[in-house]
């Protein structure tokens, strides 16, 4: 199956990885942040000083106790960091060298409930998202279809295929296993130049198009959109391979690659480590450029990532770090009148629009927040059959009926990343979408 998406935007940003040979660095501290798993109400199962092994539960969901967040490494709990009103910010683990790993019981899995329980218990359900609402899937609901993406179309991202090229067996077992979970289809989306073979029991979708073409939700909206009352799962190929590893061996795989990218990185590179790694050692390996302006470290890509600090951590679902200039220390005289070719824009009023050179962005909004003035801007970068302006207005107006009719079940914040970038009015579109999804879920559940 072929899927050609015409809308979207590929940004060319400096700091691309050229050498794909993974490096290794020793990271000692790892963390799991429950905020990275929307929809999950965390209850912490461990306390400071506890010994854990890779795969043992750190937190569980209050509503569905079997849904766990698990430790990515073996070691001791360094801290349970809490914020205001004792909200759990993250659980930090200091890694030891035992490399002990939990063995899950896979022999007794036969029914759908067993399969769900295994996924939930192993912390893998939490790494899948369901639509509607873009949250950790409800284990009581079997998904209509499952959409797996082997594409990361975000700026500076490396292809997820890099980590699964030698895992075709695991992927095949995962597909067989997920057949228990869904009666529908399992779609695996790839770029036409993929090295992945055809898998039995899955539909291979060759996707062409600019970002957000790689988002599983965007693909779903174009293949088989989510309707009211339906649920689909979205995950990426790496998670799929991990499910395969689990059902084949009973062990969770936590090792991952992290792409360290961005214009402020001296040697953009790929580093192997485990999920939830601390940022500092990774940046030490890739080295930051020697600058004296403020920088912004983003866990993830520049369009949808999360700000983190040097002593912060890689947030799920990202396997990427991007470092850019913050820009708040720049004094730019009449920037709106600039004809500098260094400014990137989708607008032909900037010479940079015609340049093919990778540009060096900073985190400034480049303007003041306004009401929606220009029309059709979002449509150009959201390849889905929805009317983004109207949906966003329905969300802002908290009109549940309109949100439903305009397709809120089909969207996730990440699908609006490129739209937020191009927006002349500088509106926080992804936050609006997140709030809308949460509001909708609260109202209906």
């Amino acid at each position: 199956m072929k899927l050609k998406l015409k809308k979207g935007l590929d940004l060319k940003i400096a700091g691309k990885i050229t050498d794909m040979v993974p490096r290794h660095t020793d990271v000692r501290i790892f963390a799991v942040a429950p905020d990275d798993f929307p929809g999950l109400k965390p209850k912490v199962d461990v306390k400071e000083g506890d010994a854990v092994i890779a795969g043992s539960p750190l937190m569980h969901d209050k509503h569905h106790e079997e849904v766990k967040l698990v430790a990515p490494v073996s070691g001791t709990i360094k801290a349970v960091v809490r914020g205001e009103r004792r909200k759990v910010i993250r659980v930090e683990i200091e890694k030891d060298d035992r490399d002990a790993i939990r063995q899950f019981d896979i022999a007794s899995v036969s029914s759908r409930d067993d399969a769900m329980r295994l996924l939930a218990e192993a912390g893998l359900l939490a790494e899948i998202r369901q639509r509607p609402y873009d949250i950790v899937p409800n284990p009581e609901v079997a998904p209509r279809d499952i959409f797996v993406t082997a594409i990361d179309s975000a700026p500076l991202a490396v292809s997820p295929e890099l980590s699964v090229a030698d895992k075709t067996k695991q992927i095949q077992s995962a597909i067989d296993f997920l057949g228990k979970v869904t009666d529908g289809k399992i779609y695996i989306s790839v770029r036409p130049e993929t090295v992945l073979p055809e898998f039995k029991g899955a539909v291979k979708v060759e996707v062409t198009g600019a970002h957000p073409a790689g988002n599983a939700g965007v693909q779903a909206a174009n293949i088989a959109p989510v309707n009211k009352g339906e649920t689909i799962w979205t995950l990426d190929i790496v998670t799929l391979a991990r499910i395969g590893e689990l059902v084949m061996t009973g062990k969770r795989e936590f090792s991952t690659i992290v792409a360290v990218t961005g214009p402020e990185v001296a040697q953009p590179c790929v580093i192997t480590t485990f999920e939830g790694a601390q940022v500092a050692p990774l940046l030490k390996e890739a080295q930051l450029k020697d600058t004296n302006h403020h920088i912004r470290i983003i866990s993830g890509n520049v369009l949808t990532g999360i700000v983190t600090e040097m002593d912060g951590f890689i947030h799920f679902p990202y396997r990427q770090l991007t470092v850019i200039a913050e820009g708040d220390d720049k004094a730019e005289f009449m920037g709106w009148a600039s004809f500098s070719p260094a400014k990137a824009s989708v607008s032909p009023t900037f010479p940079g629009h015609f340049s093919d050179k990778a540009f060096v962005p900073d985190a400034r909004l480049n303007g003041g927040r306004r009401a929606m003035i220009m029309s059709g801007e979002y449509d150009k970068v959201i390849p889905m059959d929805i009317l983004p302006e109207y949906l966003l207005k329905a969300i802002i107006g908290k009109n549940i009926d309109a949100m439903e009719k305009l397709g809120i079940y089909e969207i996730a914040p990440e699908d609006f990343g490129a739209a937020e970038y191009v927006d002349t009015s500088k509106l926080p579109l992804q936050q609006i979408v997140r709030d809308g999804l949460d509001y909708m879920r609260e109202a209906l559940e």
Partner: protein
Amino acid sequence: MNFLKKYLDRVRPNFEEGGKLHAFHSVFDGFDTFLFTPSTTSGARGAHIHDAIDSKRTMIIVVAALMPCFFFGMYNTGYQHQLALGHDTFPFWEMMLYGFLAIIPRVVVAYVVGLGIEFIVAQWRKEEIQEGFLVTGILIPMILPIETPLWMLAVATAFSVIFVKEVFGGTGYNVLNVALFTRAFLFFAYPAQMSGDKVFVATGTALGYGHAVPDGFTCATPLGQIATQTTDQLTLTGVDGKILTTWDAFIGLIPGSFGETSMLCILIGASILLLSRIADWRVMFSVFAGGLIMGWIANACATPTYPASYLTPIDQLLYGGFAFAAVFMATDPVTAARTTIGKYIYGFLIGVIAVIIRTYNNGYPEGAMLAVLLMNCFAPLIDWCVVQANISRRMRRTKVISKNA
């Protein structure tokens, strides 16, 4: 520019909450963000980088696109004045200076009144000053006859900015085009001063410069003349009594509102707007298409009852405010239809209705203005239909699925 930045940073505390100049914080903010790109950065989640385009640049591009028309308006005002005086020499710089002196008080009044209201409202709402009026303020004098009294211009601007824009929530929320509403307000409130054969040619001195034309001088615009003709042989004359040709109308050396006469300059402006993709080509294209088609129909069924029906479709586009409305008014994204299909319908109907009004209602040569304002009101309805189509597509999908299940 560092000293300026330092100065702004030094005086900033005076304008902040509790400072003695807090009452002017919006004004300060406006100047500060105008001079220096705000250093506000993205939030912790969401897009971390943003496109360089913002609403300041967007609005300035529109103002830049208006400049050819503006400068030509200066020239034409001086030119028509020379003709009215009966001179047969046309010294370029003298005409430009006369035109400049004639228009500049109007621009100043429009900006002072409009921006003044915007500043006060922004201060009151504790918001940033919005750029929308940058465009409106230059549009207003350009679409008015040059002889419009300044006080009327001030009253109309104030009325429009307050009741058409601010009460709806400011830039981005208005239903009607503010500049056009100003024109319409004057047209209906002061018809004697706003139409007819006395206001479209500057006859007095401009701020003391130039010579006054003797009393009793009249010259109507081409569309004004057509309305009073009774034969199928239209004769349109200029200020000097010479016959006006299609070429004159294309270049724009005809009496009319200050910035609207030159098709050539409007086309230059249109190309700026289209190349910069600030304006939507769909709207612009379909207004012209609608005008041509309706102009052709009207011309095909021409009758002496409606003398304007003898105008060829091309002439319909060349005379009056049609082209200017198509390029600069209909394309205002806030008041136009916002859906892709809606834009075609919206534009097409503007073109059609503009020609219908000016052809079949001799009293209203300003069909383009009324057509845009009318369609401004209908744009939400057009969009509603397009949105409903999207919704019913989604609903149908749900039904098919629940049937199969």
